[in-house]
């Protein structure tokens, strides 16, 4: 039951983030690889934010370590998702032709959605630590 609720919370976060990007005129990733790159860039932004907040004294070392761990875990999730993607689309992974099955392979896409959701929760956590 709890994992069911978490799954819907992560999907809701993903949808909200996608809508926010579109409203700001930012590109919304369309393919699996684009979503993987977006997830990787988000992990990096978590680390960059944590570094700046730690150096300014806005967060503790423990908070920074939590952010570092979350981003590293996200990288592992991305690697798992990419491996699942390559298993479904072995011949296409360098060029990604517009094959619907490879645009959003179910297992790989679900993993990426979970990764992005966790990163967004980490970003939200960091935001609560911003100085008011």
């Amino acid at each position, binding site marked *: 039951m709890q994992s069911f609720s978490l799954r819907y919370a992560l999907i809701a976060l993903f949808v909200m983030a996608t809508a926010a990007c579109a409203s700001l005129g930012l590109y919304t990733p369309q393919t699996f690889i*684009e979503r993987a790159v977006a997830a990787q*860039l988000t992990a990096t932004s978590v*680390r960059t934010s*944590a570094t*700046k*907040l730690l150096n300014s004294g806005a967060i503790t070392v423990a908070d920074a370590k939590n952010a570092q761990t979350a*981003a590293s875990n996200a990288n592992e999730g991305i690697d798992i998702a990419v491996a699942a993607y390559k298993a479904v689309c072995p011949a296409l992974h*360098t060029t*990604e032709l517009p094959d619907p099955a490879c645009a959003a392979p179910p297992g790989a896409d679900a993993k990426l959605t979970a990764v992005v959701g966790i990163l967004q929760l980490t970003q939200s956590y960091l935001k609560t630590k*911003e100085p008011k």
Partner: protein
Amino acid sequence: MSIALADTVLTTVLDLLAAAAKLTALKASKDAAGLPITLEDLKDARAADDVAAAELDKAIAAHGG
């Protein structure tokens, strides 16, 4: 709020938007070259992430972590 703290808040917000902005820029440059975003781009993004991870490790160490 001091100017230093306001600056921290602003740069943090910009960091959060930076990921989406970087993807937008990457897509635009790829489109201009007539190429799709590929796993090579993911490798490049991972390399940049490794640098950011090292910077955070350095900051953690500097603060006694």
